């Protein structure tokens, strides 16, 4: 509640100016809510993994972890890159921002590509019992978020070229980079749940 400004000379507060700055509030509320879908999936995954009488489908030994680890490192570092892109934007260094922002997008795209390669090499499918189902559901749902994030970043990048759009772009950039950090944190949890925690039966 900062927008009810005491220094306004008016006796009654005009209606319109109060609209500013709600977008981020709304977006944060949205992210909190969105995180609960993931939470639901995580809890469901963990419960199935603990209680299911059978876990690994016939002929599957477990998951390869090296490739995904590289992927993880790249995705997590992209979060830092995005952060520095934002710093540049605050310093009004538009080209610096664009460069790092593009790098973030590239790293995100690499992650998606890596995921694609991993998927295409797996010996099980969506319908291979709970194991297959949960694996593709979780990684796929997360992957969709990564792709959304990349598209949103593209949008922000394009916007940065529009003149006089600086203030709006900044708000959007804050929101998108929040989203990106969110997607990263989700991935870390996912990585631990799916790859680090092994169940071999």
């Amino acid at each position, binding site marked *: 509640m900062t927008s009810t400004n005491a220094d306004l000379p008016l006796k009654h507060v005009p209606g319109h100016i109060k609209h500013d700055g709600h977008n981020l509030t709304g977006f944060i509320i949205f992210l909190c809510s969105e995180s609960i879908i993931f939470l639901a999936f995580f809890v469901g995954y963990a419960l199935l993994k603990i*209680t*299911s*009488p*059978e876990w690994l489908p016939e002929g599957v030994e477990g998951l390869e972890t090296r490739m995904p680890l590289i992927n993880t490192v790249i995705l997590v570092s992209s979060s830092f890159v995005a952060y520095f892109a934002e710093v540049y934007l605050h310093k009004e260094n538009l080209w610096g921002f664009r460069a790092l922002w593009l790098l973030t997008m590239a790293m995100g795209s690499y992650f998606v590509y890596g995921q694609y390669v991993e998927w295409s090499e797996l010996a099980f499918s969506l319908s291979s019992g709970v194991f297959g189902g949960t694996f593709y559901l979780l990684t796929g749902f997360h992957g969709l978020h990564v792709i959304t994030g990349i598209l949103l970043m593209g949008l922000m990048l394009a916007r940065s070229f529009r003149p006089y759009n600086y203030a709006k772009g900044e708000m959007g950039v804050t929101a998108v980079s929040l989203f990106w950090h969110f997607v990263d944190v989700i991935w870390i949890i996912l990585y631990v749940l799916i790859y680090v925690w092994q169940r071999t039966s």
Partner: protein
Amino acid sequence: MTSTRKAPKKRLPLRLLAVILISTALDAAMSFQVSRWAYGWLPVPASTAAPYVDDLFSLEVGIGAFVFIGCVGFIIWSLLFSRAEKYDESDGLPIEGNTKLEITWTVIPFVIVMALAFYSIQVNEKLASLGPKQKYDVALNQSPDAVATLDARRDIGPIEVISRQWSWEFVYPDGVRSSELHLPLNQRANFLLISKDVLHSFYIPAFRLKQDIIPGSVISYSITPTREGRFRLRDAMFSGAYFSNNQTDVIVESEEAYDSWLTQTAKRPLVQGLSPGTPLYEKRLKDGDRGWATVPPAPPPMVNDPGNPEAPHDA
């Protein structure tokens, strides 16, 4: 809180106190009566568990009636004595609250419901000792009795209760199969609840017993019947088109009658058992398969005793 017009401060007048006392006593008397009636709102109690449930129910009806009659009585009283006259435009007493009163009516319900909860937990534990219930996950190729631990204090059993869309089948330890459940009086019977397709629920109102049956698991459950008679066994978890017909009877009989039924039935050949959905589905097909989609009924189970669905039941 600063208000320009303070409500006049007054002590509880004696008259009011008397009214409150009398109406509380009246309320209590009425609720007590209602709690007596509550026993009659349930089917005959026919298991060792039933009396505990009924007592608890009666208690809750009593408390509930007390709260309900008290609140509604107050509303009626207000409607009688606090109505505005037709052209009276004035305001009521500007009371904004009373912290003491508010705390009171937070604490009292808190105490009531907690007492109720702890009493119910006790009943719960009692019921669990009368008929323990344990759920075990089974994989596709495992047999139920290999997975489940049986109730060590059972007198008879384990009786396999196999539920399907839409039939019940009871398999006794010596291999007798029946469409109706026969139980000896006052003997603790242990069941293994099994579903072959979707969720069902094993519900015998007279026993105050209900347990969902979950495909992919087997549930070991015990009960001791205490009254002879023929009682309804109903599927109580929606299981598809002919769900409402998925009912059969439980026959509680003396030990001798039970034993002779068991030996007699063992000699009978296997016949098609009760499958109430089957004739209905056949009729539907004959009438041109109108209606909305449904899976066909499972084939009727093959049993030694197909039962007598027309017999009148006690509860």
